[in-house]
């Protein structure tokens, strides 16, 4: 997405691309946000994260005292995200990234000093303990309690779910009720919890993709200290919502990912099948690819639009939900179409000798619904657009 040649940005993009080409480690290419498959991969990822901070491709927007560059350029972040996606590397806006944002924005000086350097040097990673079995799209329905103790500190009881990277993380960014007399989002505080705390049990969840990318986390009388509070008491909702906004710097990743998938689709359509035909020669296939390519450009334009507004401080309440809807529904449609294109081979998966493109599309297809559900289902996104951007009535509570 560019209008005219911009020498500086092109130079920067080339620099990033060369860096990734020469230094990026070998991490399995799969759909979406995936957890390491084993300890070796976890270590590779940690080292890679440290290298990205070191090279200034991550954390340029941090305060200078904590290692930021002092001259952060959001367009550079966009380019980095795009190139990372293009290279098939794990997205940068992971749980650790989110925690770093929260620490910088809401942490005490002590917390920053304790945690930020360990994020930069890759030694520690984080996970997010937000969703619960009965609080998904309706996060404010959460029930996990962090009971304040008279002697200071809190006692945490409850269950979290859909925690990505939990099985590997050192620290958890936890939301829990510190005041159960307050309703819904009003009684919630944010905490930092060590993932090896006594009473905290992590059970990796296997998903329909067959891999284990999320975990359930059970907490039974987990004692945490008073200084593990992140932000003010009962201000946890604000801490969480603003941190979720930090995903903004991953803004370009989706578009770059889709373009990469489009290249795979075109390759698939151009491949001669055993009967000697090439799908790309059929106008129905061409039309469908044209439609997808159009939607990808639309997705990228909306990213651009949103970024422009953010930088001018002119965000609209519809920007985030529109971006999520367009990306997630297009991502799903692309996986469905690629399977159609594969015809009878579409049923084969990774590991079969006749599978096409390594089974990537089958994994994409199974994973795709994560995007239309996680972080607020599409239905919630449409509600937000209608209510906040168009001023339509809110849904009645039961």
């Amino acid at each position: 997405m560019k209008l005219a040649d911009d020498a500086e940005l092109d130079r920067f993009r080339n620099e990033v691309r060369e860096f990734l080409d020469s230094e990026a480690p070998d991490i399995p290419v799969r759909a979406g946000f995936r957890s390491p498959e084993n300890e070796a991969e976890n270590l590779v990822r940690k080292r890679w994260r440290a290298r990205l901070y070191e090279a200034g491709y991550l954390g340029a927007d941090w305060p200078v005292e904590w290692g930021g560059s002092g001259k952060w350029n959001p367009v550079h972040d966009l380019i980095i995200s795009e190139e990372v996606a293009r290279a098939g590397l794990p997205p940068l806006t992971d749980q650790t990234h989110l925690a770093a944002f929260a620490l910088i924005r809401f942490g005490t000086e002590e917390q920053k000093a304790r945690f930020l350097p360990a994020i930069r040097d890759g030694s520690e990673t984080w996970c997010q303990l937000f969703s619960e079995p009965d609080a998904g799209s309706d996060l404010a329905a959460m029930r996990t309690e962090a009971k304040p103790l008279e002697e200071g500190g809190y006692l945490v009881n409850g269950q979290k779910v859909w925690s990505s990277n939990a099985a590997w993380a050192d620290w958890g960014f936890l939301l829990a009720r510190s005041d159960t007399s307050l309703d819904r989002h009003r009684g919630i505080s944010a905490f930092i919890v060590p993932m090896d705390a006594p009473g905290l049990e992590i059970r990796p969840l296997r998903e329909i993709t067959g891999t284990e990318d999320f975990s359930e986390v059970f907490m039974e009388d987990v004692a945490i200290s008073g200084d593990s509070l992140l932000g003010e008491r009962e201000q946890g909702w604000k801490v969480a919502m603003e941190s979720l906004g930090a995903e903004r710097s991953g803004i370009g990743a989706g578009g770059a990912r889709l373009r990469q998938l489009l290249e795979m689709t075109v390759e698939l359509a151009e491949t001669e099948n055993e009967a000697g035909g090439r799908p790309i020669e059929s106008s129905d296939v061409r039309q469908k690819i044209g439609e997808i390519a159009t939607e990808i450009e639309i997705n990228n334009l909306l990213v651009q639009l949103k970024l422009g507004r953010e930088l001018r401080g002119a965000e609209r309440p519809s920007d985030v939900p529109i971006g999520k809807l367009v990306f997630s529904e297009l991502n799903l449609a692309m996986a469905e179409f690629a399977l159609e294109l594969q015809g009878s081979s579409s049923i084969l998966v990774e590991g079969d000798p006749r599978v096409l493109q390594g089974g990537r599309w089958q994994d994409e297809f199974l994973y795709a619904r994560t995007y239309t559900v996680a972080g607020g289902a599409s239905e919630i996104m449409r509600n937000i657009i209608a209510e906040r951007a168009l001023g339509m009535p809110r849904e009645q509570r039961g």
Partner: protein
Amino acid sequence: MAPTASANDEVELPLDLDLNDEQRQLQDATRGFLSRHYPLGDARAILESDREADPEGWRRAAEMGWIAVLADEDAGGLGFSPSTATVISSELGRAVNWTPFLGSALSVAALGPAAGGDDRAAGVMEALIAGETVAAWCGPEPRGDGWGADSVRTEAVEAGDGFVLYGEKYLVADADLADELVVAARVDGELRSFVVPAEAEGVEITVSRTLDLTRRFATVRLNGVRVTAGDAVGEAGTADAAFGRTLDLAIVLVAADAVGAAEKLLELTVEYAADRIAFQRPIASYQAVKHMCADMLLKVEASRAASRYAALTLEADSAERARAVAVAGGYVSGAAAEIAGDALQIHGGVGFTWEHDLHLFLRRIKVDQALFGDTRQHREQLVGLLT
């Protein structure tokens, strides 16, 4: 089964697209049988390993008439009734069942009327009806240009008083458990079918890794497999019609399978939506969820009618058969896939877990969608009939 039934002497009732009483009984019996002998929990054991043969279960299934309903009376069956077979197939889809029904059912159709007189074929047919044998139909060879008889490139080279088979068959249902294979091959370009023991020398069966975690499909290689003239099925010149009939049956059974799975998904989803609370209300009370479920029901109803009607036309060998089969093939599995997508969307996170059964249905439907011709091929067929 008569296509129309008289309510009184003067008024003809139209074609009934719901099940008749007899078929409803069969449905109940099959559902009961499957839930007793093949509870969904048991499926977990085979999700990531090979299936094991279950001769006892297969015999019991055969006793219920699973195979007999597709065999002509001359051959010892109950008469060729695809509409009855769709009842069974739907129940199998509902139960994500892993018995080798599809391969055997198609083999019976491929052996066809010929099996009445033919020694080798008659023997296999008899054993199939009795549940003593499992068979797999090695018919189409999909290579990107469809599943029709045109796709068959396997050759049967005449040698002495028999033939030698060379070729490769993809995505053969139930070949992993089959005792016998019914193989379509070309003799000097002309289509013939042969009965080949799965254990015969030169037969190589490799189970494919597919999205489907309960059924099994395999690549069957025929590396110079010797068969005798007696292994050929039916008279020369009859194989094309039998192939067409078998393929149409395959399309209809797979559609019925998808209908069963989709119907079950709808039930699971409506139930889940009633229980799941978000923003202090059951999610079933949100119009977006209601409307999705309404569309799911619409598609289930339409899919059931389409697969049943196609089965009836096949049963009657009606002039409408080609059209009806193309409609069932071009509508049902796509609709079922949409239902599966909506089911997953409404279930949210919980449906995304390996432990939840939802993905077993989703995967099965996705495979049904690709078997024996996809939406695109069926639509093209239908347009061909119009223009």
